[in-house]
């Protein structure tokens, strides 16, 4: 789950990190009114992606009229593929220095890691790539947490003595927020030192672990919407992992690895997959729902069912697919290859109820599905 700046900053503030005064606006009138209250401000596009400034989505405004006219231009823009529907009107800050701070899940150490740089601002990732010393990377124990000691060491030697205590408490609070929110990534860029030596978070990027959603109920509704097609949204609501891909061979398989592999093999034999759709894991009983969603895609010219059951029982999945197929009676050919737990029952079921002979080799099933799709596409 990703959170836009306007949703993330109040969560930081709750953990004791200073953020500028701000107000969310959905149209130019609202933006003007907010600016009247706040004074000289920054008008910031709210989209769950970076590089907003470069795209022209962040503008300074000295007056309410100016804020309103900036808002008019920014709302309706598209940034990184996201339409801008709202802007944050935020009080201007007198910046002395721009820093960067983040806490992320680090796969290499299997624990949290603090990232800190004195080169905050727009191109910190590029700067860190060119000069690895530009970014300090400090893995630490999730049991001890981010201690003052570790935080102090991370900011030492960078000429930040005047604000060191404030910086240390900001980083310790950042860790508190990271833990409280089950964050995968909690980033402040820039973390600024103001002209009057205050440490303030000017932006915030937050990604919360999807696995933690059941215990993060309070913030889940604040998350930015996922970029999904209509069918993808429908599948997500059913708890299915479905991604539309634009090809003509429909794919239904169990397990992420096998589903990805099926897509790869389709493409290897000259076809294009229409979708990723996994019915493995806990979703193996939902084959029927899965199939009916998949068939709503008008580009599908043939359907390939590839089951290699471990945990997912192929007989249960086949029953779901066959029932749905009989009920929906679609006008496209279907091809099966079935192995693993419950395969004898599954194969018998497909033969008996659909009169279709499953292929023993996956490659043969893929070739047949690709040939059928290509033939039907050229008609």
């Amino acid at each position: 789950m990703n959170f836009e700046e306007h949703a993330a900053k109040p969560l930081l503030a709750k953990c004791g990190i200073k953020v500028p005064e701000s107000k969310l606006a959905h149209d130019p009138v609202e933006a003007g009114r907010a600016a009247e209250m706040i004074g000289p401000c920054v008008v910031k596009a709210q989209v769950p992606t970076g590089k907003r400034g470069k795209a022209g989505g962040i503008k300074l405004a000295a007056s309410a009229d100016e804020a309103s006219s900036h808002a008019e231009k920014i709302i309706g823009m598209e940034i990184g593929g996201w339409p801008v529907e709202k802007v944050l009107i935020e009080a201007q800050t007198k910046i002395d220095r721009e820093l960067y701070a983040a806490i992320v899940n680090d796969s290499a150490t299997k624990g949290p890691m603090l990232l800190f740089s004195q080169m905050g601002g727009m191109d910190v990732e590029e700067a860190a790539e060119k000069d690895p010393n530009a970014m300090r990377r400090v893995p630490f124990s999730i049991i001890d947490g981010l201690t003052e000691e570790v935080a102090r060491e991370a900011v030492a030697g960078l000429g930040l003595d005047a604000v060191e205590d404030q910086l240390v408490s900001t980083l310790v609070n950042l860790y508190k927020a990271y833990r409280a929110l089950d964050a995968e990534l909690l980033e402040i860029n820039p973390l600024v030192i103001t002209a009057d030596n205050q440490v303030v978070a000017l932006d915030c990027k937050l990604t919360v672990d999807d696995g933690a959603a059941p215990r993060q109920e309070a913030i889940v509704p604040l998350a930015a919407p996922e970029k999904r097609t209509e069918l993808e949204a429908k599948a997500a609501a059913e708890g299915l992992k479905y991604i539309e891909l634009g090809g003509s061979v429909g794919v239904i398989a169990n397990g992420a690895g096998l589903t990805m592999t099926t897509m790869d093999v389709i493409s290897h034999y000259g076809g294009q997959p229409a979708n990723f759709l996994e019915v493995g894991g806990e979703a193996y009983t939902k084959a029927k729902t899965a199939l009916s969603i998949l068939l709503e895609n008008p580009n599908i010219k043939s359907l390939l069912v590839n089951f290699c059951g471990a945990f997912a029982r192929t007989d249960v999945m086949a029953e779901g697919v066959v029932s749905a197929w009989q009920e929906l009676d679609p006008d496209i050919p279907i091809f099966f290859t079935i192995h693993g737990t419950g395969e004898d029952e599954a194969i018998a079921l497909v033969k008996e109820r659909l009169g279709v002979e499953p292929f023993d080799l996956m490659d043969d099933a893929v070739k047949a599905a690709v040939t059928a799709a290509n033939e039907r596409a050229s008609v």
Partner: protein
Amino acid sequence: MIPRKHHRILVQGITGKQGTFWTNAMQEYGSRIVGGVNPKRAGTEHLGVPVFASAREAAKSTPFDISIMFIPPMMAKAAAIDACEAGAKMLVCLTEHIPAHDVMEMHVAAAANGTQIVGPNTAGLVTPGECFVGIMPGFNHRVFQPGRIGVVSRSGSLGTLVCLNLTQQGMGQSAFYGVGGDPMIGTTSADAVRILDADADTDAIVLCGEIGGSAEEDAAAYAKTMKKPVVAFIAGRQSPPGKKMGHAGAIVAGGKGDYPTKRAALEKAGVAVADTPSGIPGLLKERLASSAA
């Protein structure tokens, strides 16, 4: 370690629907199940073995080497730490969607107690002809046959397909090592390759990777130092960037973890990379023939 038939296995969550189904399947295959855990059913018997309130309780009277968890995600951390503190040498964690911060705490407990965690989000391990620990069709003789090929896979379903292809070509397996589809797993692909490299019953290794993370690059770095042949397949060549392909760890983000990078790293290390899973047995035969020559 590689699970053997003498290893004593504890099943956490033994009385649930899946726990019961798979414990029964493991027992029938020859896995040595010595006990189970369910706090509400402590003191009873299930599938012929005693049920305990916790792994620590079990350890007092019924020592075990391996624990396998059939535990839902929100309760997984407590169960895993229990198994580690009870002295499990290996913990097979099947659970998917455990919050990442909980997984980090599990890894700390494992390190402190000397437990090898396999997973989270693994389908488990199969030692054909001896035992299996997990939710793999270990009992299906068309898929798994005893032999001398070690198989490592992030995905259970792809691993099943690859073992099936090997068996169809007359190449049995010394061990199947499912490492799991999560981004922060205990035993990495490189670790599993190292374990199979050290195994006297393994002549060659098949590595089934997928896009996302750097597991294949790390395994490649180790493969460079090996004498045994390694053949790989990487799933996700056709997957669009920026999307989680089912597994939490299978995502190309910010240009990292993509197919070409992984394939190049493996090939540079002398690993043969198959375009499709059906190409694996042929490449293995070639490599084994040339290493014998």
